[in-house]
């Protein structure tokens, strides 16, 4: 049975698109047929992060409006087998997302795919609501920072009241915390919230901690999901998170500052 996963946060710029691209790629690498859908209508960016921006012909909204077939709008990833991208429109706005339209497209995707990842826009308005409404799982992307944690708490409230599962009194949406842009050195210095603090406040299971990493910017520059940079700590953190999502027990890493010897520092500079 296909699973719908929403990558959501409330707050903008915390790493939803980065995480959607990484997670979708990670699931496809594990052999699951996966599609990642951009719900950020009008501010298309997933295509850039996935590196398929030059190949967008039709989009999610064209499919909703019946202007194109789903298989014409799906873009097959050139690097990873089983991975597809459904880009969104750059010219329309969130009102183009009707609940019936979204449901129709998701139902069609469910017939083909094992996992459907919905990259939510920021906020708690229409676009974000549409992205989470049909979810089975919600990955709440949070930065260790007060406003992000507060907004995550708000989005957890929305999941518990406005998702389809909530409205229909079904099993609740399964929630997972993905703490991103974590800087263990600043945590050590007491400048940044600790994982434990965030967990205590939000009280949902921890899927992973993704460290602040220059590899993320590097990967986005070349249009490659960071999880494919297996040498980077961010890439490894995403690989771990995908494994945990699939039920494997993987110890959390990247939560302590790395010990830096001189040689280590020199080597790292070139990596």
């Amino acid at each position: 049975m296909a699973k719908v996963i929403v990558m959501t946060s409330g707050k903008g710029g915390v790493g939803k698109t980065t995480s959607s691209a990484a997670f979708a790629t990670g699931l496809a690498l594990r052999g699951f047929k996966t599609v990642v859908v951009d719900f950020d209508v009008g501010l298309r960016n997933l295509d850039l992060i996935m590196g398929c921006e030059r190949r967008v012909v039709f989009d999610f909204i064209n499919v909703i409006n019946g202007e194109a077939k789903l298989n014409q709008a799906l873009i097959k990833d050139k690097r990873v087998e089983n991975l597809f991208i459904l880009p969104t429109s750059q010219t329309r706005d969130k009102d183009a997302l009707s609940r019936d339209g979204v449901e129709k497209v998701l139902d069609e995707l469910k017939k083909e795919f094992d996992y459907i990842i919905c990259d939510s826009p920021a906020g708690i308005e229409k676009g974000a609501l549409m992205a989470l409404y049909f979810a089975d799982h919600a990955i709440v992307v949070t930065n260790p920072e007060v406003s992000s944690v507060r907004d995550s708490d708000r989005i957890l409230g929305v999941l518990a009241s406005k998702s389809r599962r909530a409205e229909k009194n079904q099993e609740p949406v399964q929630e997972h915390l993905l703490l991103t842009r974590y800087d263990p050195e600043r945590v050590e210095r007491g400048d940044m919230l600790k994982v434990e603090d965030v967990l205590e406040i939000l009280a949902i299971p921890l899927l992973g901690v993704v460290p602040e990493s220059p590899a993320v910017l590097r990967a986005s520059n070349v249009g490659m999901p960071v999880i494919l940079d297996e040498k980077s700590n961010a890439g490894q953190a995403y690989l771990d998170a995908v494994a945990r999502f699939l039920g494997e027990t993987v110890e959390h890493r990247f939560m302590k500052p790395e010990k830096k010897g001189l040689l280590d520092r020199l080597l790292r500079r070139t990596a």
Partner: protein
Amino acid sequence: MSIFNFFRTQKKTVAEEAKERLQIVLAHERGAGSSPDYLPMLQKELLDVIKKYVRIDEDKVEVKLERGGDFSTLEVNIELPPPAVAAQRRRQAAAGGGVRPA
């Protein structure tokens, strides 16, 4: 310049690659008329014309676009139905009969 940068000058840096990618997509997104929004219309009209002559399955239409700096290519692949004779022969074969010479 460090020795590492020296070797790197042979290849595009990631920042240069990012700039190039952006210039290409933005060039396509900015100018009026260059927006790909005409594609659904174009596809529909193209299919209407083709349908005047052959019966086609709309699920077997593939449209590919590759945006480039200097030019873009639009590729439309339409699977045409098999010619009537071949279809008839296949039906007969399926029914167990061969095609008798005239």
